[in-house]
């Protein structure tokens, strides 16, 4: 079992190489699907190993996976698999419609799996410096995916994404250097001074003032990449301009990678700073929720609507982590998973609408239920899910966070949270019902875009539905252990 982390990293790396070696589109698609499946299986095995036998490490102390890493690995590999499946149908359609030449598909599959590789590396890096490098790597791997269509709008989005993301990440590096500095103070220039496993043990002895400044830099820095308001300005552009499967990866997974970075630092500074980082997280969480509201209410483009909804959900997760009781942590971590599933499902729906109607304008779409029978139904289910309506999975985590907030006396925060959620529900209701009901345009055939797309959506829908009523004991264990990682010594 000791080599499992190597295999986990090797799977997407080899897939990217395999897809790059051939010009045959069929082979690229096959490599993509097989590679993503293998990555998913390995991700599941790592998660299982962590939950049953404790943290895994490899290469000395270079690679390390505890329950918090395992949660991220699970999300990356699961959503990665669904997006890989969806990519086949969607990208074929885009080539067919002449949105880009078929020869560029190879680049797509190479970058897609390189992107997955960098995100998995974020999850298994023990060294916070290597984690920083991997997070920067995710930006570099995905920048071309955002600008993939090479139109004015997509290149603009890619440029903004790269520049704003890089500025953010550089600030996070400053925070990382400061933490290293404070650790060297305690340990001397030992090699382990930047490693999570070392840092968390000496967390209580670090200099409080240095840690305060460090956490602010890390929160602003990684927060930019996580889409926390007010540093989220690049996000709606990038997430709406990328090809749809990439949008899903960005919204559902990449944001969590950056959040993961914040969580690690949160755990390191908490023993010395008490609730300093909690307060900041609650504040940024509420601002993100609040900023999303007006944009959701007036949205004209459904992919931008979903992108703003990601800002909202990142805010919810930050709020939950900020509240910080075991119940809130459980809810927040569960929300990471639930949001990832529901959001990629909604992006898949959006991709099908875009492929069918050829527009991203909400007011130009009518009668999705009739024109796209399966997508239309999933559109309604997904809308209810993403806005946190029972009986779907997101409701469970949002309700848990609500309970935890009330139980711990954060009345103002929780009241605002509830208010924002209601407003966002109203915004979604207006847009989604307009698109789902009514009559489709004359002469539009009643047909799904591609069986690959439908399969990917049904796969995710199963999670949304089942996890609304039932959480496997294994998964509950995973979340409790991951919560314990964040709340180490308090």
């Amino acid at each position, binding site marked *: 079992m000791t080599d499992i982390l190597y295999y986990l990293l090797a799977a997407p790396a080899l897939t990217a190489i395999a897809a790059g070696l051939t010009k045959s589109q069929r082979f690229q698609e096959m490599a993509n699907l097989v590679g993503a499946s293998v990555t998913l299986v390995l991700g599941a095995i790592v998660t299982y190993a962590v939950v049953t036998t404790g943290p895994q490490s490899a290469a000395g102390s270079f690679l390390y996976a505890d329950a918090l890493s395992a949660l991220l690995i699970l999300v990356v590999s699961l959503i990665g698999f669904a997006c890989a499946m969806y990519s086949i149908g969607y990208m074929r359609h885009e080539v067919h419609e002449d949105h880009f030449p078929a020869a560029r598909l190879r680049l797509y599959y190479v970058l897609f799996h390189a992107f997955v590789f960098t995100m998995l590396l974020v999850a298994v890096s023990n060294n916070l410096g290597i984690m920083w490098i991997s997070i920067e790597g995710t930006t570099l791997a995905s920048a*071309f995916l955002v600008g993939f269509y090479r139109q004015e709008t997509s290149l603009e989005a*890619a440029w903004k994404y790269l520049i704003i993301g890089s500025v953010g990440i550089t600030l996070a590096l400053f925070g990382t*250097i400061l933490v290293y500095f404070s650790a060297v103070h305690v340990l001397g220039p030992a090699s382990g001074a930047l490693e999570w496993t070392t840092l968390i043990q000496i967390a209580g002895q670090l200099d409080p003032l240095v840690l305060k400044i460090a956490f602010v830099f890390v929160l602003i820095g990684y927060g930019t990449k996580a889409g926390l308001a007010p540093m989220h300005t690049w996000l709606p552009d990038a997430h709406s301009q990328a090809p749809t499967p990439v949008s899903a990866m960005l919204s559902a997974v990449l944001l969590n990678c950056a959040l993961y970075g914040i969580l690690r630092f949160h755990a390191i500074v908490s023993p010395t700073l008490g609730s300093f980082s909690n307060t900041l997280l609650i504040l940024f969480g509420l601002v993100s929720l609040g900023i999303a509201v007006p944009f959701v209410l007036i949205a004209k483009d459904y992919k931008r609507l979903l992108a703003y909804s990601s800002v909202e959900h990142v805010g919810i997760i930050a709020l939950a982590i900020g509240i910080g009781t075991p119940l809130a942590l459980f809810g927040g971590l569960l929300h990471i998973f639930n949001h990832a599933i529901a959001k990629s499902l909604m992006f898949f729906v959006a991709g099908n609408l875009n492929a069918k109607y050829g527009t991203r304008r909400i007011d130009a779409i009518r009668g999705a239920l009739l024109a796209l029978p399966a997508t239309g139904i999933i559109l309604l289910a997904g809308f209810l899910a993403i806005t946190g309506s029972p009986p779907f999975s997101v409701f469970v985590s949002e309700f848990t966070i609500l309970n935890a907030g009330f139980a711990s006396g954060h009345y103002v925060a929780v009241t605002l949270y509830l208010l924002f959620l209601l407003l966002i529900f109203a915004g979604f209701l207006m847009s989604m019902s307009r698109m789902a009901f009514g009559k489709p345009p004359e002469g539009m055939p009643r047909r799904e875009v591609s069986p690959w797309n439908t399969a990917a959506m049904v796969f995710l829908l199963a999670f949304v539905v089942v996890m609304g009523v039932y959480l496997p004991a294994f998964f509950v264990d995973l979340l409790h252990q991951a919560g314990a990682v964040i709340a180490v010594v308090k």
Partner: protein
Amino acid sequence: MTTPLQTDILTGLTALVLIMTFIMVSHKSLTPTIRTYAYQSILLSILAFLVGLFTGEHQIWIIAVVTLVLKGFAIPKLLNYIIDRLKIRRERESPLGIPTSLLACGLLVLLAYAATSRLPQAETSLGRASLGVSLSVVLIGVFIMATRRKAVTQTIGLLVMENGMFLAALSLTYGMPLIVELGVAFDVLVAAIVLGILLFNINQTFDTIDTRQMERLAE
């Protein structure tokens, strides 16, 4: 650790790094800005070399060489190649004039010193003064990115930020662990290449690299 003379040499070089950043802000055209960036990187490399020499931490020399090759030569060459191919020479439009920009950067330096003055003294020979300088360089990098409109200049702003970061790591702890420093250097190189390719794509599509043209994505 180091003798007072050695410390003075290091502090003097650190001050030069800051002065170079100001020179970059004062340039209007791109070629001298890129040249100054190259000089600043070479200076950082010398600084790293001296720190290694004075303290006996010889692993810093590897970083010094990588910095010299990558940031002193390779990246400036890449940037020059880009502006040659895209035929951009001058950066005319800065919403603030040069004097105002310099004044603003002076204020940023004060801010940086205020923010770092209360931190505990580092045990390294570069010490606290250079931490103030490095944060200043980072902030001025952000300033360049925010006020200049040409995509190439924004790239330079990013690279200046990264140089400030390098100085911060050097002055606080004699640099981060070797593997991390190498990884960061690699990321900087890849970022410069990615930005370069993106610039070519943008140039082909927009016929300009003025980022003010990029305002289609408004709500």
